[in-house]
């Protein structure tokens, strides 16, 4: 089976998942007491004729399955509704904040994968050595620390006392940098939140890489690779790591949800103007359309994340493509 066909199949599997998520949120909202018309007319009540007209305008007089069908179609075309609190389309609010979150997530993911895999390989090369023990203690410690506490400690030490890094937000508004200076400014603001999230995720990746590399390094094909006369580096990277990363890729894919949860916490602690912060604020102002939109958007994000994981896995492991 070609890779293209494999991807098509995966997309075909992902679509019903997304529709399922949309149906779920629709049902949840329908189960809640009241309807949007009550919300618009408020406590005062209104003429039944007006109410009926509003209901018809919003399609609420239609049978439930028609409403559901319309809602699913609406969402699939990218219309996530309208936020009354911000008086703006939900999708615009989300897309406005998305880059800030992606910047944070991608940076910390790349960093924690690079460092975590590197430390894991170092550990696995000599299990039980003092280097391995030191790395193990380090990763267990970072794994056990909650991200909000770690974030606040970073703020307190590196930010508040030492004044090394800014502790809030993404840019220095007062300076109003542009161009290259703006890039440096953002990078400077990213240091603490990215550090907090990297430390959190790195531990899991290190432990997984260590375990799977120890197993792979005992495999016959690694002995064969050494017997070919390859350098230890080539044996590790070309022969062992490609196999050793398979379980790591799977788990990172499965952990995608908690990555998003971690992002919400971190963005809140560091006042980072991203989706996590947007969600947090939406809860505070009871902005239901925005929350619903966020829910569906995050579902889509997780599904896309899993799709990427599947594709990566298929790229790494030819056996997957055939089964």
């Amino acid at each position, binding site marked *: 089976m070609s890779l293209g066909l494999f991807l098509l199949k995966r997309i075909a599997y992902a679509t019903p998942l997304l529709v399922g998520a949309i149906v779920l949120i629709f049902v949840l909202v329908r189960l809640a007491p009241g309807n949007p018309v009550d919300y618009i007319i408020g406590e005062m009540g209104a003429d039944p004729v007006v109410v009926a007209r509003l209901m018809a305008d919003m399609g609420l007089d239609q049978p439930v399955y028609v409403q559901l069908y319309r809602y699913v179609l609406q969402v699939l075309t990218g219309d996530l509704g309208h936020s009354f609190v911000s008086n703006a389309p939900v999708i615009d609010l989300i897309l406005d904040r998305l880059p800030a979150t992606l910047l944070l997530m991608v940076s910390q993911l790349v960093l924690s994968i690079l460092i975590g895999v590197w430390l894991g390989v170092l550990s696995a090369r000599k299990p039980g050595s003092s280097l391995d023990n030191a790395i193990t203690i380090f990763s267990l410690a970072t794994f056990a620390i909650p991200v909000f506490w770690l974030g606040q400690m970073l703020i307190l030490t590196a930010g508040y006392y030492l004044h090394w890094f800014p502790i809030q937000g993404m840019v220095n508004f007062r300076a109003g940098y542009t161009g290259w200076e703006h890039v440096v400014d953002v990078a400077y603001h990213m240091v603490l939140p990215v550090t907090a999230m990297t430390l959190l995720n790195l531990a899991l990746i290190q432990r997984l890489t260590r375990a799977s590399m120890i197993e792979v390094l005992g495999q016959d094909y690694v*002995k*064969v690779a050494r*017997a*070919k*006369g390859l350098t230890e580096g080539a044996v590790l990277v070309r022969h062992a790591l*490609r196999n050793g990363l398979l379980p790591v890729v799977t788990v990172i894919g499965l952990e995608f949800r908690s990555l998003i949860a971690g992002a919400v916490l971190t963005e809140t602690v560091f006042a980072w103007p991203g989706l996590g912060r947007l969600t947090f604020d939406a809860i505070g102002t009871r902005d239901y359309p925005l929350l619903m939109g966020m829910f569906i958007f995050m579902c889509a994000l997780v599904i896309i994340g899993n799709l990427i994981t599947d594709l990566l896995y298929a790229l790494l*492991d030819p056996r997957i493509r055939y089964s």
Partner: protein
Amino acid sequence: MGEWILQVKNLHTYFRGATVVKAVRGIDLEIAAGETLGIVGESGSGKSVMAQAMMRLVQSPGGIEKGEILLDGEDLAKLPEARMRAIRGNKIAMIFQEPMTSLNPVIRVGDQIAEVVRLHRGYSKRQALDFAIEMLRKVRIADPERRAREYPHELSGGMRQRVMIAMGLACNPKLIVADEPTTALDVTIQAQILKLMVDMQAETGTAMLLITHDLGVVAETAQRVAVMYAGQVVEYAGVEELFADPLHPYTQGLMASVPQIDQPRPESRMLPAIPGAVPSLDALPVGCAFQDRCPHVFDKCRVSEPLLKLHRDGHSARCWLHD
């Protein structure tokens, strides 16, 4: 024989963990160009460790303790690692027991063969792949162009062992170390692979160190045999000489239930069980290592260790009975 291409002198290989496991204890061997030397012995007698030591591939905490491994007069035991790498897969190649696990599951078969000649011959990618296809043809794999693009899981066990042979012979090595190359295969496939190895050897003039449990295999392919017990060679002779007149009680025990070479063989050709077990290699008894299982044991055997002594032309044994 005149010109030895490989001489092993007093080779010791120990594993230094909580206790010292003396897996190989003073082995002397030599192989002439184009010759096949068979190594037989029970499980745990140190055959694989010796083979790995000859390629300097014993992994920590194991290592060569003392001794010389002379390849064309050059002592491999003292070679710097970088020089040793240039020899592995090039002048000495190894074929392993488990064809199912010896090939890297995520790399195309052709690329795994090509890797050897890219490394040692400096071939370009294209050249190396053409060469790999040529090698696959030589080991009689049908449709080699297609097979080269396949992954190991698409090949049968017999085919995979053919690929391993192609890989081993790629650089036209002086010596092939084959560690039980047919043990994991079906009986009919075993015969085919063995025939292939003998034919290829005749064609290329490569010498072979053939490790096996199977006395039948030795009788069919080897010119000379070394019988190993508890990390030592206990008997060393030409193949006909050994089968006609085994000197060591251990060799006699091995042959007791094996039929004559010219008679049809029974289903199982594995080494027959000799009562008792190989002594623990980290707590060997004083005297002969075989004393507790030997039917002819006498006082001297429990006091001092016999040496490997030449009894007649090319036939030596390590036993006080023949002193």
